[in-house]
Each structure stands twice: as C-alpha cells, then as structure tokens.
C-alpha cells in the first residue's frame, strides 16, 4: 500500500471522523437507547479500515490483541456489573431506578449509559478480534498474551 498516497491520506482523515461518529452514536444512546451495538461496530470499522489500508502490524501496534481480548470481557462485566450494583442498591437486577432513588428517571439515564457503554466496548472488541483472527491467519496473536 506504500504507493497508494490518496488512499492513505484519506484513511488518516477518515479514521478520526469515524471514531467521532461512533462516540456520537454511543452517547446519544442517552436519548435514543440502543446505540451501543451500532456504535461498537462503527468504532471497530475505524480500526479495521486502518488495518486494511496500512497493515495488520500497524493496527495491532495501536490496539494490541491482548487488550482486545480483555475489552471483550470488560464490556460484559460492565453490563452485568451495572445490574449487580442496582441489585445491591435494593432494586431488582438492572432496575436503573436504583441509582437515583429520589428521581428514578435520572437513574434510568445513568443505567442505560453504563449498559450501552458495556455493549459498545464488547462489540468493538469482538469485531476487531474477528478481523484479527481472519487477517492474522496463521494466528498472529501469540497465545502467550493471554
């Protein structure tokens, strides 16, 4: 790809914009819940595009495989953890009203925010992990990194 100057320049410009859009979709979830999945995919696209145009080594330098795998787990934990916290606050599992008992609808905002963040993180990491797995055959992520 060394000689594809236009492709490289445009990619460098786009990656930032794609990420920004991903964050927009992610955090707009507050008002239109359910953006975590889409935002995660968009965020992953930024990394995949970078990997396609430059190289797998370059993108893995930025986003190393061990981190990808930890993030997959972190997102799930964030989601379930939100539920557990609401449980310890005395409401049922994932009842976000627990976070601000005096004004439950605020709690709903915070709860959805946290849960969608978890979804976003996991989806980003899973998409990138799938890309790494396909692009890196024979596997590039050394198993020692677990």
């Amino acid at each position, binding site marked *: 790809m060394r000689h594809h100057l236009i492709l490289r320049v445009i990619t460098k410009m786009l990656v930032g914009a794609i990420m920004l859009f991903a964050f927009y979709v992610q955090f707009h979830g507050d008002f239109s819940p359910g953006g975590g999945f889409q935002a995660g995919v968009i965020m992953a696209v930024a990394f995949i595009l970078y990997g396609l145009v430059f190289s797998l080594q370059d993108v893995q330098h930025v986003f190393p495989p061990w981190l990808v795998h930890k993030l997959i*787990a972190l997102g*799930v*934990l964030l989601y*379930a953890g939100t*539920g557990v916290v609401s449980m*310890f606050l*005395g409401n*049922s599992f994932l009842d976000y009203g627990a976070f601000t008992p005096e004004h439950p609808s605020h709690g709903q905002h915070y709860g959805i925010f946290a849960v969608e963040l978890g979804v976003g993180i996991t989806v980003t990491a899973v998409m990138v992990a799938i890309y790494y797995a396909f692009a890196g055959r024979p596997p590039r992520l050394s198993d*020692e990194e677990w």
Partner: protein
Amino acid sequence: MSVEATQTAMTLTDHLPVLQVVVPLVTAPLIVLIGSRRLTWTLAFVASVISFAIAILLLMQVIDGSVISYNIGGWAPPLGIEYRVDAANAFVLLLVTGISTVVLPYARESVRSEIPARHHTLFYAAFMLCLTGLLGVAITGDAFNVFVFLEISSLSTYVLISMGSYRDKRALTASYDYLIMGTIGATFFVIGLGMLYMATGTLNMADLAERIADQGSNRTIRAAFAFIVVGMGLKVAIYPLHLWLPNAYTYAPSAVTTFLAATATKVAIYVLLRFTLSIFQPNFLFQVNTLEFIILPFAILAMFAASFIAIFQTDFKRMLAYSSIAQIGYMLLGISLLSENGLTATVAHLFNHGITKATLFMGVGILVLRAGGSFYNRIQGMGETMPWTSAAIVIGGLSLIGVPGTAGFISKWVLIEATIEKGWWPVSVLIVLSSLLAVIYVWRVIETLYLKAPLAGTDYKEAPLSMLIPMWILALACIYFGFATDVTINAARTAAQGLLAGSAGML
C-alpha cells in the same frame, strides 16, 4: 447489606433467581480479565459452588408446588422479562449446578492432561458461559429469553467441544457439525417463537399459554409448534436428528463430555416439556397427534436402533454417546404418554440418567488419562490395575441398564408403570427388551475391563484422587437414589404436576 436499609423490601433471598444466572455470568469475564492460570480454576469452582447453593435454596422454596417470580429490571411481566422458578425447573437447576460442581474438581486434572495450559483460562471461561446459558434456559419465564440463553450455551459448547482437538483433530469437524445442526435447530426454534409472537403478541410463557388457550388451534400456532419441536428436537438429539451427538461426545475433552451429557440434552428436554405442556395445551389435538404418531415411534426407534449401534462400537466413549441417544428415547417416551406418571418418569429419568452418564463418562476420562484412549482393545484388563475406577464404571453401567437398587431402575420402573396405566402394554414390553440391549453393551465393557488380560507392558496406576472422588460421589449417588426413591420421585411428581398445571386438569 446495610446499603439496602434505605431502600425497599428486596433482600438477598429475593434476588436468588437472578443470582443463579448472574454468578456464573460475571465469573466468565472475570476469569478472562484476571487471566491468571492459577486463579482460574478456583474462581470457576467457587462460582459453581455458589450456584449450587442457590439452586438448593430455590428448590427448597418451591418443592411444595409454589412459584417464585422475579422481574428483571423491575419491569413486570408480560412486558418485562420474568424469571420463574417452579419445581420443574428448580429440579433442572439443581441437576445442572450439581453436575458442574462435581465435574469441576474432576476437570482440573483431566483438562491439564488434555488441553495445553495456555488455553485453560479460556476453557474455564467458556465452561462458565455454558453453565450460564444452561441455567438461563431453565430459569427464564420468557420464551425469547430461552432462545438467547440457548445460544449462549450452544456457542460456548461449540468452543468447548473444539478444545478436544489437542487430543484428536476430529474434534474440530465434530464441533463444526454441531455448530451447523445446532444453528439450524436454534433458527427453527426462533422461527417458531416468531410465529407464536405473531399469533399472540406476547413472549411471556404464562401469558402465551393463556392466549393460545383463548384462540384455540389455528395454522400459525400449529406451524409454530412444529418448528419449536423440530428445533428443540435437534438440541435434544431426538432419534433422526441425533447425528451431531456421537462425534461431539466422542471427541470433546472428557470433562466437557461429562458435563454436556449430564446437562445439555437434559435442559433441552426441559424446554421441550415446558413448551409442549405448559405453553401449548396438552389437549390440543394436533399436539397429541404429533406426540403419539411422531415422537413416540421415534422414541422407540431410538431405544432400539441407538442401542444396537452402541453394542457394535469399539470405543467406550462412543458407545456411551449412542447409549445416550437411546436413553433420550425413554425420556421422550415419557413425554409422549401425556400423563402425570409419564412425566414423572421423564423428569426422574432426566436426573437419574444425568448422574449415571456423568459417572460413566468420568470413568472414560480416567481411562483416557491413563491409557491414552478409550478403545476396548486399549482399556482391556484395567479392572485389575485400576480397581476403583472400574468398580465405579460397573455401578454406572448397572444403573444404565436399570438394575434394581440403582437410580436407573427407579425411573424405568415408573415409566413402565405409566405405560401400563395408559394400557400401552406392548410399549412396556419394548422398554424391557431395549433394556436387555443395554445389558449387552454394558457387559461388553465389563468383560473388557475384568475378563481380558491387560495389554503386555502396560502398568497403569490408579487415577488421582481429585478425579476418583467426584466419580465416586456420583457412583454412590446412583446407588443412593436407587434406594431413597421418594426424594427424586416426589420432586419429579411435583414438577410434573407443575408442568401440567397450565392445562388445569385437562388430562
């Protein structure tokens, strides 16, 4: 719990239904995040023990026939997702968590010898996810939620089976076959759910049951029923849909086979029970016909065909896989009787066969650990060198046949009683005849272990205690439940009554 004081009435006890699923669910990502090979097993085991304790507490609350309902996110059913515990699924939860708690100590040594150390964290994470999925399927009262958890357990099962590839590469194709078949099954299941949703506008099981009763039988509902039975049939491995099972069980790591054989198909049978009895009405003619003219013949065919195939196997593990298909036939037979006794037999056999098969597969795992394989010509004469392992295998084998004094006898007895009560005495004869086939294939193993000379130059030690003790716990359970019959039969009867309660005396 001082934080809670400011709030409301929800205490830890109220949260038990959701904790049942959340504990293993949280453990899986924790294992990956911590990533320590030493802590991994401990974390998984602790989570499993906690789940087991929760399952016991839940069963104690519902054994009298009452029902616990838990609203996820505080959204009341039928809109929200409801976790609903009654005797039937509390029984399944107990089986699943109990088996996982016994299998994990056993798995430690077995996994160490069969899977490279760098994959252990992933293995236990996948195991926890599989447990989460199975528990979720059993506990949820929401039909779509069943599908979600079914996928969680299935996907992690494919991973677990493929980990057998370090011992035998064929695990990869076995896992792939199961992936294709399992996905088709799940797709059929979700198509069925879609049709139900189309016809009724709800996904909550109790609500579904009511609305289906109101509108009676129509084509959408019939199609939904057919799709759900076929979809679940693939997961259960009903006879002609069983092709994924022998390879998956044969090539999976020993600990995984033990866990899956005792739990995964059993949970699928529970779903089948729940759908055919609680959601669709048992007096719904189309359903009665399906059960009587499709499920019943296939169940009987499974009892014979799979047993015949089992007789001619040369690999102990594969033989047990085919025997599982035959045993599933007995459970389906119990369902197709559509009577309280028949269901009691199914639920009791679900449990009894679970512990029996777990004992036997653990035995296989130990033989594999020492002899490096489970082919008959490799394990011959090991009764002398490994007396404890072989003795437990004999107990498991007797229970598999259904010899009086073992758990397997009790459920078969109830099943025969149920067929006679229904007046289907030819079926009772067939049950006894197929048990004779079990005698043959179990005898082959006993003959191999005890009556043949050990291979020259082999000097196997007895298995490590960490594997022997779990196996003997299960072997003794096989005997215990063969004598203390009221425990299983009563629980199974309460479960059967609960399952039929939706149909309020229509039988």
